[in-house]
């Protein structure tokens, strides 16, 4: 199936023109493109068919995302919902919640932003302060979320919130779906290093959430979210953000003798990382939660992305404006790409603890 899927993605890309971009899964938003992907059956390929998916595996999804990221296609509109929210609902959500959200997610009709980090809770996610209190059959959520990419465009927000105070701060957390057009939500832009608007701060002030929109078991959010982090960290987007630059440099014939030697090191890391994300996908298919492998590929993936930029830098004086634009995008996105999903020292600490 993977060979046929790879061909289908390549055919789709040839039939749907776009301008390649670095960091396209986070910074290149085109809702029409995402919906066309959905119509072509190239979103949610690993979800059950009854919920709008392709009935395939995590390895199938890896094949699709590798090819899309390789091309620098605009993926930001559907990315969070398809990569992370759908799989979380499939693992932990009630059948009703799955029915309600998975089919529209698979068509990119419903889009998500991710409300995990807070102003005082980044790497230490368990220290988050956003709270959800019971309100009849539902909940009222109050708090602040930061770095919520695409919240100014998404229809829904995933929120991790504290529903009770326990002795162990990893207990008492719950995952929620929140409609972004709910009263009490304020979205404020945060501009990035190029002055572009992808990030936001989201303030929630007693936002009403229906009871059925709690994901999984109340108070079990931490255990659920740890598994979700493998979806978030363990994919090819953690090393292919700068790949369109590498690809463009090769296509432009800019590689000199020095760059050719450097290319061997890049090729070696690319080979390693592609093997690692395949292993992660295989573990996911087996029902596992490959947290440490995902942390490992995320760590080395960022190193690889930075290496691509360093390798390309001396070649830029001879580059066309189009290639130079990819270089600028890659460089500007690089600090954030090392932090989102977990900063490097935190990843290394996790890797060290694993036996």
């Amino acid at each position, binding site marked *: 199936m993977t060979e046929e899927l790879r061909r289908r993605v390549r055919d789709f890309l040839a039939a749907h023109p776009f301008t390649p971009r670095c960091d396209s899964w986070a910074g290149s938003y085109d809702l029409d493109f995402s919906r066309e992907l959905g119509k072509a059956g190239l979103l949610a390929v690993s979800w059950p068919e009854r919920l709008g998916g392709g009935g395939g595996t995590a390895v199938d999804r890896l094949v699709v995302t590798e090819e899309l990221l390789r091309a620098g296609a605009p993926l930001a509109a559907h990315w969070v919902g398809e990569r992370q929210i759908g799989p979380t609902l499939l693992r932990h959500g009630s059948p009703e919640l799955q029915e309600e959200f998975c089919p529209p997610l698979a068509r990119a009709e419903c889009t998500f932003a991710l409300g995990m980090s807070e102003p005082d809770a980044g790497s230490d996610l368990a220290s988050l302060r956003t709270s959800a209190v019971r309100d009849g059959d539902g909940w009222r959520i109050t708090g602040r979320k930061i770095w919520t990419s695409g919240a100014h465009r998404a229809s829904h927000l995933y929120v991790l919130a504290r529903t009770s105070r326990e002795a162990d701060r990893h207990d008492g957390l719950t995952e929620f779906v929140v409609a972004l057009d709910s009263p009490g939500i304020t979205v404020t832009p945060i501009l990035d290093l190029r002055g572009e608007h992808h990030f936001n701060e989201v303030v929630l002030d007693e936002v009403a959430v229906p009871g059925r929109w709690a994901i999984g078991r109340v108070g079990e959010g931490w255990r659920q979210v740890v598994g979700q982090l493998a979806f978030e960290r363990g994919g090819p987007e953690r090393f292919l953000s700068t790949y369109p630059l590498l690809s463009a440099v090769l296509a432009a014939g800019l590689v000199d003798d020095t760059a050719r030697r450097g290319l061997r090191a890049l090729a070696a890391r690319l080979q390693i990382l592609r093997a690692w994300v395949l292993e992660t996908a295989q573990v996911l298919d087996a029902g596992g939660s490959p947290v440490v492998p995902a942390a490992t590929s995320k760590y080395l993936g960022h190193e690889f992305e930075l290496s691509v930029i360093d390798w390309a830098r001396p070649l830029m004086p001879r580059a066309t404006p189009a290639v130079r634009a990819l270089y600028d995008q890659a460089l500007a996105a690089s600090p954030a790409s090392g932090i989102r999903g977990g900063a490097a020292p935190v990843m*290394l*600490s996790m890797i060290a603890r694993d036996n």
Partner: protein
Amino acid sequence: MTTHTLEADLDASVSEVIAGWERPGDLREQWRIAAELGWTTILDDLRADAPEQDLIDAACGAVTALGRGGIALPLRQTLVARAGTPLSTVDAIAVHSAAQGIWAPIADAGAFEEAGRDLANRPYSLVPAAEIPLRRTALSEVLRLQEMLGAAQGAVAEARRYVTERVQFGKPLAAIPAVRTTLGQLKVDVRQLETVTHEVRLRLSGDDGALAFALATAREVAATVVPRIAQTAHQLHGAMGVTYEAALHWRTRLLWADCDEGARWGDDGADAVPVEETALWSLTAPYSAGTNAISR
């Protein structure tokens, strides 16, 4: 990571045998045991045109276990020399020019003058480099990579044990965040070495271009991470790691010696890395050997 049963079996049984060996021990006595247990003849029946993966895996298991134990024996050189061309005796020390004269001065065939000893105290001779077929070179290189991988695994185990047990400032060293991140980096480096080694091994039965590419990338990764693994392990282990009594001492010497042996290749094979994206993308895909392997 795919682990073949035969490799695991050989790895475990060799590890068990060498657990009580002295370092440095009596080379001839260790070699006699190795021959008696059949380690030297693993590749005698290997077919050159279609190498049997289970035999390759068994050889890799034995060589990795020796490396992990910090034992320098002429096993990998002998395995390559005998591969597909068995010798009349099982205990002959044989060498192949793909291993650049390491152990040649004590080999049972040929008359090689000792030019010196490497960092693992292995005698070497300055044998003129002959033209070696790609597949024979690749077999030799896979076993060198496996020996380094074993030594690296042994070094990490020692470093981890030390930072867990050694108390300074009232806590185990592993409680210091910088120590933890350094240990994490060390493990990432070892995993890189493991992955590229595994990929070359899988491609021994693939086409020449795919094999040459994996060989070029594996050499590059080994040349980068192996010295770093040795240095980092010592940083974590503290001064005691340099001493004869420290297990790390023997792993380090093997790591350095094997890495230096690989320096002969320099930029050889760099042109196996294409400067064209489609080919690069295809060659960096994990080799399609298993049912779940990704296609290109």
